[in-house]
């Protein structure tokens, strides 16, 4: 069954130019995980409820499982792999690490990306704002307490 070649999509991924084949129906989460091997972005629910696939597109938190790769043409995409610039953890990552914002860790990349998008537009958010920013992300292990503490700490440290 000969397939038509998939069109090449161009976007910036974690600060680098990226050209990758993707069909019209291909989802960004598939492109990231399957084609590019960026498996830090997770899939949890297949339906937009768990937030594990949260990435930043032009700095805004979005779900890679509900974004077609084709729509990313010309845009700036950031994933969890891009946050630790030069191997140094970002302040959010450090806070998640030190305050134990992780347990099994599966929700962590999405959680951090959702928090990252908040801190970029609101560097000193209230706890209420933090909870709202994380309300699209599910965690089954930690009880969220230390996740919220971690974001608060990162915001304070900023």
């Amino acid at each position, binding site marked *: 069954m000969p397939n038509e070649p998939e069109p090449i999509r161009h976007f910036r991924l974690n600060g680098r130019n990226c050209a990758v084949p993707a*069909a*019209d*129906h291909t*989802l960004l989460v598939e492109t990231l995980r399957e084609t590019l091997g960026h498996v830090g972005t997770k899939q949890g629910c*297949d*339906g*937009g*409820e768990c*937030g594990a696939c*949260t990435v930043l597109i032009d700095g*805004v*938190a*979005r*779900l890679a499982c*509900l*974004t*077609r790769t*084709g*729509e990313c043409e010309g845009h700036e995409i950031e994933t969890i792999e891009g946050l630790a610039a030069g191997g140094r953890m970002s302040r959010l990552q450090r806070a998640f690490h030190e305050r134990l914002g992780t347990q099994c860790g599966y929700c962590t990349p999405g959680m951090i990306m*959702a928090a990252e*998008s908040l801190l970029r537009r609101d560097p000193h958010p209230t706890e209420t704002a933090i*909870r*709202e*920013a994380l*309300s*699209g*992300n599910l965690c089954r292990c930690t009880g969220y307490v230390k996740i919220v503490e971690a974001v608060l700490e990162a915001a304070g440290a900023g």
Partner: protein
Amino acid sequence: MNRFAYASPATVTEAAAATGLVAEAMVTFDESAVLKAGGIDLLDLLKLELLTPSVVVNLRAIKGLDAITQDAAGNVAIGAMATLSQVAEHPLVRGSYPALATAIAGAAGPQLRNVATLGGNLLQRPHCWYLRSPAHHCLRKGGGHCFAIHGENQYHAIFDNHACAIVHPSTAATALVALNAEVELHDAEGATRRLPLEDFFVGPDDDIQRENALRPREVLTAIHLRKPASGTRMAHLRQGEKAGFDWPLADVAVVLAIGPDGVCREASVVLGAAAPVPHRARAAEQALQGRHPGEAAAGDAARAALRGATPLSLNAYKLALFETLVRRAILAALA
């Protein structure tokens, strides 16, 4: 998900022409072309293979469709492609239509609100679990009956539910109907028409397979809101099972025009998650009009709002819940 081609026209007219039928997720389930706004609900339906279009027509490339503008008279137009985040945070919306801002800010999660559009939100298909289940061939999908009426109907309609018990999923619609919003529709010949949002929604008695009146080759382009009269007060309240990111069990929008004498001139009371379309509670509105609204009037209106309800086996709790929300929304509007 089936394979589909993808078109990104630059104008609304081209977009309308590209579709055999219409609008995001607003077609019967096997249509060949659909319009895509934010694409949230569309992708969901595609993944479930409840939609298997051959072409998806993207509206994103069309410039200006996401604008939020105010005319000289103070009326506001919200482009259908404005995202929920944009709308909820926009000063014009927050300033003049706080009930709309509240209704939208409580919808979905932040990542979705960054993508989902107001137009798409109004046109999304219901989230009835039988409708969304490929295994249940329900009336709305051309099947023989509504599974909810004698099934698991705890989240379903308490009004107009004798044929199909879906509830309209949009909390924005609840607020917009209460605000007497109009929708602007654009067809493939470049003509536009406007009609009240309230009339735009289609109940099961009129057409069991669609939820709105969008015609073939027509695109929803804008939502128009009149400048609120002075003395207008409004509120939107919702109650879900979860404290965040959950479909409401009930939501209520109230818009009151209060005269300088403190008498209610006009009242809009609309219930969401109550009926297949946003449900205007006329009896409640009448209970408020011409009165000095307060605890007593709010209580009367709340009771009146539920008159004529026909709850199903598992959703009679919604009566008490709506009664509370209507009363509280009226009082919140006045506060």
